[in-house]
């Protein structure tokens, strides 16, 4: 297999490799695997596309992401060949105009691509969707696929903290965020199915998430009460969605399987559940100081009852099911606002 990228001679010693990666700004500060021709070749062999196929152009520097360059970064992250298609699918999703990669890769916000995987590949590839799925479970797929996407944004897209990306705080997901949905414990069709894919499709959905926003309750077992409190919690007054356009962006809300089961009894249809959340995700205009309140009024954000809704439509609140069986908790992945989540089916090599 002939590769087009530049060959570089590096030390064989792992510690020296790590130090070189820091010096060359090739990484995220964590040791990486060497992108040898063998490692890159194995990934390319699993690709449905030729090495010179352009997956996308990645901002902020508009770097051309060929399959080969993506494979090099995936090799450094430790992606196994069977998972390479998920990296490609994620990058395709990110490059959809409505995901707004140029805005999201340059913003002062903490937003970063958060990958949600559906389909049969989750177990085979080590995509975490059970206990500690958002950090700590350590599945190879979750850790390497998300990291490969992050490395592509750095090495191909040119993201450099404080230079090309102005994110004030960054966030842990900038090391890579990739979870699965616990479809088997969900009372609703999977996220991918609700977005038009088949149950046996492997699908990557990319959400521009600002972080992991934790919620907890131990006092109330009523599903409507709990969902009401979740709705109020995600409508926090300094949410991005109160800054921008009410019709843009989505908030992902991850329910643990125990709560999901309870919610599924009250709301057998996920659309009805989302509608209930949207209906209750508002704050009274009086909550905001007058300076903010005036702007919200001027932008038509206040309804006839003095309520300021977080989002305009139910489909802007996206429930998923994942996490451990310890119950008690939910996690929201708040939106940047000016970004629409994108899903891509994973294409396998024939």
């Amino acid at each position, binding site marked *: 297999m002939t590769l087009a990228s530049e060959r570089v001679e590096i030390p064989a010693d792992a510690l020296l490799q790590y130090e070189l990666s820091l010096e060359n700004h090739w990484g995220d500060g964590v040791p990486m695997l060497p992108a040898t021709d063998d490692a890159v070749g194995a990934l390319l062999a699993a690709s449905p596309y030729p090495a010179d196929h352009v997956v996308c152009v990645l901002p902020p520097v508009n770097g051309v992401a060929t399959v080969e360059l993506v494979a090099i970064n995936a090799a450094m992250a430790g992606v196994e060949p069977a998972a390479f298609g998920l990296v490609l699918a994620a990058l395709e999703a990110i490059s959809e105009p409505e995901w707004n990669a140029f805005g999201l890769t340059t913003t002062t916000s903490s937003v970063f691509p958060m990958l949600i995987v559906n389909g049969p590949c989750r177990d085979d590839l080590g995509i975490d969707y059970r206990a500690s799925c958002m950090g700590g479970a350590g599945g190879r797929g979750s850790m390497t696929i998300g990291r490969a996407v992050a490395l592509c944004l750095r090495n191909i897209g040119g993201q450099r903290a404080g230079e090309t990306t*102005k994110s004030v705080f960054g966030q842990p997901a900038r090391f890579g965020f990739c979870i699965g949905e616990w479809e088997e414990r969900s009372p609703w069709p999977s996220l991918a199915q609700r977005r038009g894919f088949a149950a046996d499709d492997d699908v990557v959905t990319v959400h521009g998430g600002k972080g992991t926003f934790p919620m907890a309750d131990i006092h109330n077992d009523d599903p409507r009460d709990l969902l009401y409190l979740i709705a109020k919690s995600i409508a926090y007054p300094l949410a991005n969605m109160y800054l921008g356009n009410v019709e843009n962006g989505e908030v992902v809300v991850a329910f643990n399987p125990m709560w999901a089961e309870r919610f599924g009894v009250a709301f057998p249809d996920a659309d009805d559940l989302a509608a209930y959340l949207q209906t209750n995700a508002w704050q009274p205009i009086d909550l905001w100081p007058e300076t903010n309140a005036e702007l919200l009024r001027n932008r038509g954000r206040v309804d006839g009852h003095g309520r300021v809704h977080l989002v305009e439509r139910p489909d802007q609140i996206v429930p998923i099911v994942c996490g451990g069986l310890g119950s008690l908790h939910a996690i929201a992945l708040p939106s940047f606002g000016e970004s629409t989540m994108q899903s891509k089916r994973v294409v396998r090599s024939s």
Partner: protein
Amino acid sequence: MSTGTNTIWVRRPTAPPAGDVSAPTFRLERPLTGLTIGLRTDRAWRSWQLIASVWEEYLRRDGAQTIAVETGAQIGQPASGDRKQIDEFAGQVDAAIVGLGTCGSCTTFTIKDAVTVEEHEKPVVAIVCEEFTVHAHNVARHVGHSDMNVLVLPYPLEARPTEELQQIARDYYPKVLELLGVTV
């Protein structure tokens, strides 16, 4: 691909640097009288709205007509409307002042909208705050407009008293005219 016991060969993970090409820039090379100058504001920044309103007043005082547009979206139908409005705006004006770059994504979209004006072969100056200067030049370079006029205002503008913002507007107005190529 080992070449010995102490080294191995790997592949470079970075994309080749983009060529430093630049689209042409334009200058008025004439007095303001009778010209139409556009001002693009962003609804996010009240400080910029105030500065732009002062400049609008000065431009009229100096004999120009003005057209003001306000943007506020990056995706969806609102963004489509914004970009269409900017394209029409670029077609109507003789030159434009486009701002404000005082966050990451708003700097990106300030430069993008300024590019639209340059694509109409009109003089333009993009207004950014000091903290976002390098980012603005980077974006301009990456979209092929390296030589775009960028005027840098102090940072931050937010939380400054109105009088101070008005003084900044007064202080920087001559520089705006200079960058647009206005002659006396």
